[in-house]
């Protein structure tokens, strides 16, 4: 009746679960794990630590060697595996949209297996497509080959949602996407989760992704839970060196000065359009306590310059546009510039450096803060390596 007894309530619960493959590999080792109903939990850990195996035991693609798993309070070893899988959404990294089926047929796989009437299936498919911002009349009869990578994975997620399952399993679903689509889909997943209140078990090996999307993170190591908690818990109180190195390892501490400058590019705090009056822009900057702003043509995305507080004040008193206060000398070209170049430029003068691409298209800025974080990370990981050896 209440949530006192673990395993009698919703969500997914592992109790002393061990999985040994026939070849003797011990993939999961006496795992205890409680994934609460309605949460988005990331399973994260180095390759081979048992993330996929853990996930596959939830929909019985693999059965545990020993231990007990309950889904929504039900012992899954007592369920028919086929029926169980139809009640649980499943998304894999390879996406695996069936290439011979149209988008709507792909989304409709589970509803058809469940024997929904054709009309209900059709309206459900349209509803899902619309929810994902893909106009049904345009995408219904597309084949997977006619979609971009991001669209494919969106359909992969819709396919898992189609029969409205309570629990959804995702195995590195965004791993194969470019960074921009990945971030878009991560955001979509988070808002979807907020609206639909699904229990999502999300496998990833990217700490940044886990931190961005999940309300709980479970770090696995050799088939056991190493640490479990919210993103903050893990970031600010890592339990041991393994967790600490895992947080840092992915990104910052691995970088070298010869890596491309874009790897630490950020979005600027704001931009100004070339036709804006200097006075208005100045006000915005003062409100935000900033000393410079990037001027970018909002239509073409072209970088036109960087406006500095001092020059802008003069332009404002003359009643000019922001263009009178710009400065174009310092910038880095995406593709050519390295972190070393960025560091040298920033050491020279403490203002953000704009990064531009072809045709002066604006990419973003590199701030001294980003560079400092990188340096701190490198110092720390260097110290740890020294400690371990």
């Amino acid at each position: 009746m209440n949530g006192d007894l673990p395993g009698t309530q919703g969500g997914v619960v592992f109790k002393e679960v061990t999985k040994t493959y026939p070849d003797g590999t011990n993939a999961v080792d006496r795992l205890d794990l409680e994934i609460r109903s309605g949460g988005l939990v990331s399973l994260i850990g180095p390759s081979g630590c048992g993330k996929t195996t853990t996930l596959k035991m939830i929909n019985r693609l693999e059965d545990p060697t020993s231990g007990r798993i309950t889904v929504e309070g039900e012992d899954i070893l007592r369920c028919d595996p086929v029926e169980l899988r139809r009640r649980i959404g499943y998304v894999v990294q390879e996406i695996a949209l069936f290439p011979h089926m149209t988008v709507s047929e792909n989304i409709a796989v589970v509803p058809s297996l469940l024997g929904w009437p054709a009309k209900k299936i059709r309206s459900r498919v349209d509803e899902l497509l619309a929810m994902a911002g893909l106009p049904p009349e345009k995408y219904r009869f597309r084949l997977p080959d006619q979609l971009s990578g991001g669209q494919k994975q969106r359909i992969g997620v819709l396919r898992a949602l189609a029969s409205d399952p309570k629990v959804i399993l995702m195995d590195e679903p965004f791993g194969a996407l470019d960074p921009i689509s990945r971030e878009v889909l991560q955001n979509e997943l988070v808002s979807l989760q907020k609206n639909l209140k699904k229990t999502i078990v999300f496998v990833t090996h990217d700490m940044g992704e886990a931190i961005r999307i999940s309300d709980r993170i479970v770090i696995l190591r050799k088939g056991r839970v190493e640490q479990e908690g919210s993103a903050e818990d893990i970031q600010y109180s890592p339990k041991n060196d393994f967790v600490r190195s895992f947080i840092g390892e992915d990104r910052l501490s691995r970088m070298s000065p010869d890596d491309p400058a874009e790897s630490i590019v950020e979005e600027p705090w704001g931009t100004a359009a070339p036709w804006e009056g200097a006075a208005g822009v100045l006000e915005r900057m003062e409100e935000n306590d900033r000393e410079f702003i990037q001027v970018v043509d909002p239509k073409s995305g072209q970088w036109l310059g960087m406006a500095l507080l001092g020059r802008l004040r003069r332009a404002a008193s003359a009643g000019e546009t922001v263009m009178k206060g710009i400065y174009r000398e310092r910038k880095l070209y995406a593709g050519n510039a390295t972190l070393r170049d960025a560091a040298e430029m920033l050491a020279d003068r403490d203002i953000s450096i704009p990064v531009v691409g072809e045709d002066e298209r604006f990419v973003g800025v590199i701030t001294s803060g980003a560079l400092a974080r990188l340096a701190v990370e490198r110092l720390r990981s260097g110290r740890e390596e020294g400690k371990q050896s």
Partner: protein
Amino acid sequence: MMEQRPLWDLFITYVGRNYMRILNLTGEHIMISLIAVGITVMVCVPLGIYLTRNEKAAPYVIGLANVFQTIPSLALLGFLIFVFGIGNDNAVCALFLYAMLPVIQNTYTGIRSVPRSYVQAARGMGMTDFQILLKVQLPLARPVLVAGIRVAMVWTIGTATLASAIGGGGLGRLIFSGLSSIRNEIILAGAIPATLLALFADWILKRAQDYFNPSARAVRLAARHGAADDTD
């Protein structure tokens, strides 16, 4: 009788006088071939599927089919006289043995070449093994599978001309009687329809293949449901 009439003239005269017989033999040829290919498909597609689930048996079965394939077709017909005696049964059986290999082999390799990720995804969504076969593996293996059937079909139509050597019917009758009476126009009256038949069967199967191609199908679906046909 010794006047030098050109071959085409003789041919036209022969066809004009015997078209009913040619049509009947063509019909018989089609029947023998279709029955043989039908049996081949009904036996060998399930056999190929079975082999994907019993990998250990695959080399033996495919090896055996390969042996039949290697025996010269006329010799095979000769051997089978001991089993079936003379006539169309013998011919159909020989054609079946002869056409087994491409169908078994292509079914087997076609299904095995379906990426595992699709099968895993299908199973993870709750398809039974049979549904996975029907909805995922066979449709994805279809181009390879149909290619095997096409080969079997063309071989069978060609080899069926030999059926009359052991007392069976079909266009081979004309070819053999032309050969024994040294009348080229009769040989042609059998050879030309047999060739056209093989080409036609190949073309039909190719058309069927194109028709079931996923993108052609998607276009039809879109047209039927009056969807905006913008593929930008």
